[in-house]
């Protein structure tokens, strides 16, 4: 049989699509390589400005710390919950799945209005709570990350036989904690990791909540340097793309090794 050839119309659409996706990336790269004084190609000075800016390091460290905290809190909260739902309350699964859709109806811009209104005006929360990104922002980020962690974990739990594993472990005299930590967790490692990397990408890029509740994280730093330094802003943009790429590719790689595909989309915009 003749080997099927690629259809001409397919070539047109694929080339158009590739051009649309690649041109902004290439343009940003060229832009970032321009010399800040002369506007000519090529110089690495824009990258130098970014890497020597102490604010770059403090904000990126803050964003990274917030991402880690969100991941830890999110997994501690959702792994046992989803485990329990799968094991004992399967009837609640549609309800939890529906809950995971709620953050799409209450996007960050609505969430931030509610959070500030509720904690400031209704509860009169003290400054040590409102002023600490680790408490206020991480709490909000766990909500934002919930759908992504949930869909990853749900797929992971569905792929294993929760009942048999639990009964075997309990039957051999293991406590609940040992069962969860040493039997269940290793089996859903891939799902938990892909949820974690997604969360990392989301938190590292989250602007709406951070900016409107007056915290200075990496995305707000990006917005700020763009006001007076255009070329370094392009350089920092590429670095930020690099972080997203790294997180997403890690998910694909561990997903491929683990034999399951879990690619989801973020809400960092």
């Amino acid at each position: 049989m003749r080997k099927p050839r690629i259809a001409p119309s397919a070539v047109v659409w694929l080339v158009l699509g590739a051009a649309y996706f690649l041109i902004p990336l290439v343009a940003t790269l060229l832009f970032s390589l321009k010399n800040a004084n002369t506007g000519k190609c090529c110089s690495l000075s824009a990258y130098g400005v970014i890497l020597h800016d102490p604010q770059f390091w403090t904000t990126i460290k803050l964003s990274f710390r917030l991402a880690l905290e969100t991941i830890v809190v999110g997994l501690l909260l959702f792994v046992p919950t989803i485990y329990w739902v799968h094991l004992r309350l399967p009837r609640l699964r549609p309800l939890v799945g529906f809950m995971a859709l709620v953050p799409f109806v209450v996007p960050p811009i609505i969430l931030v209005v509610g959070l500030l209104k509720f904690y400031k005006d209704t509860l009169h929360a003290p400054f040590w709570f409102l002023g600490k990104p680790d408490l206020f922002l991480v709490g909000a980020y766990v909500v934002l990350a919930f759908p992504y962690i949930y869909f990853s974990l749900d797929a992971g739990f569905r792929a294993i036989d929760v009942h048999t594993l639990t009964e075997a472990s309990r039957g051999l005299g293991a406590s609940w904690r040992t069962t969860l930590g040493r039997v269940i967790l290793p089996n859903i490692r891939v799902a938990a990791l892909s949820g974690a990397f997604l969360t990392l990408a989301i938190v590292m890029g989250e602007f709406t909540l951070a900016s409107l509740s007056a915290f200075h994280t990496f995305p707000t730093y990006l917005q700020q340097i763009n006001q007076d330094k255009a070329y370094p802003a392009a350089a920092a943009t590429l670095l930020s793309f690099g972080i997203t790429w790294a997180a997403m590719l890690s998910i694909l790689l561990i997903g491929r090794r683990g034999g399951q595909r879990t690619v989801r989309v973020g809400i960092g915009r």
Partner: protein
Amino acid sequence: MFLILPSATVLVGAFQNDHGGYTFHNVASLVSTASTRDAFRTSIEVSLITALLGGLLGLLIAYAAIRKGTPGWIRSAFGTFSGVAANFGGIPLAFAFIATLGTIGIVTTFINNVFGINIYEHGFAIWSQKGVELVYLYFQIPLMILVIAPAIDGLRAEWSEASSNLGASRLQYWWHIGMPVLMPSILGAVILLFGNAFAAYATAYALTSGTGLPLVPLLIGNDLSGNVFTNPHEGQALAFGMFFVLAAMMIFYIPLQRRASRWAK
């Protein structure tokens, strides 16, 4: 604690006046005030255009990448890239486009040098509605590819073979088989794209500096600058309006989703 209670506060707050009494005034003024009415119209326009256009282009690209004859590596390259690109967005995406098509962007200068046309003198601006739509497509198209690819995969080769054996043309195949099977998935995906664009804040903020274009999320952001409410009731009423639109969207989305899974293996 971080989702339900704050959301409820917004919903209740949208119907309260300064003294805590209940009123429809805030929500009613969304419609009667020209600025908020404009914002909702622009927001819905932008979301609708990018959802329909992104949906169409995403569908065509996804089909081109999946159909028989396209080498496997192209398919997986587009799949991987869509997974990443759908997660771009926000501040970095806006800056990438400013570096490309901004006043001193690479492509703007290129067109000016080669063709002698300054696109900014011909009505284009990256902070205009057209500019924002162009940038939104950058995450809308990959999202469409990502969402619709499994549905296109579900179109079985046997159906197309059976219909051509029975003498049907390609057009008849698409009209009577392909499209009816894909329709629920396409509609569901377009609704998802609509909500995606409707809720976007950071990208639009970075492109327009928060004031250039009246979009609902930007107005909310302005009512709330620096974590102090300058105009709490308008902000909450706007948030309620957005919530209303998105909730209505979900009501259409969930049954479509259910119908779309009927043909899944």
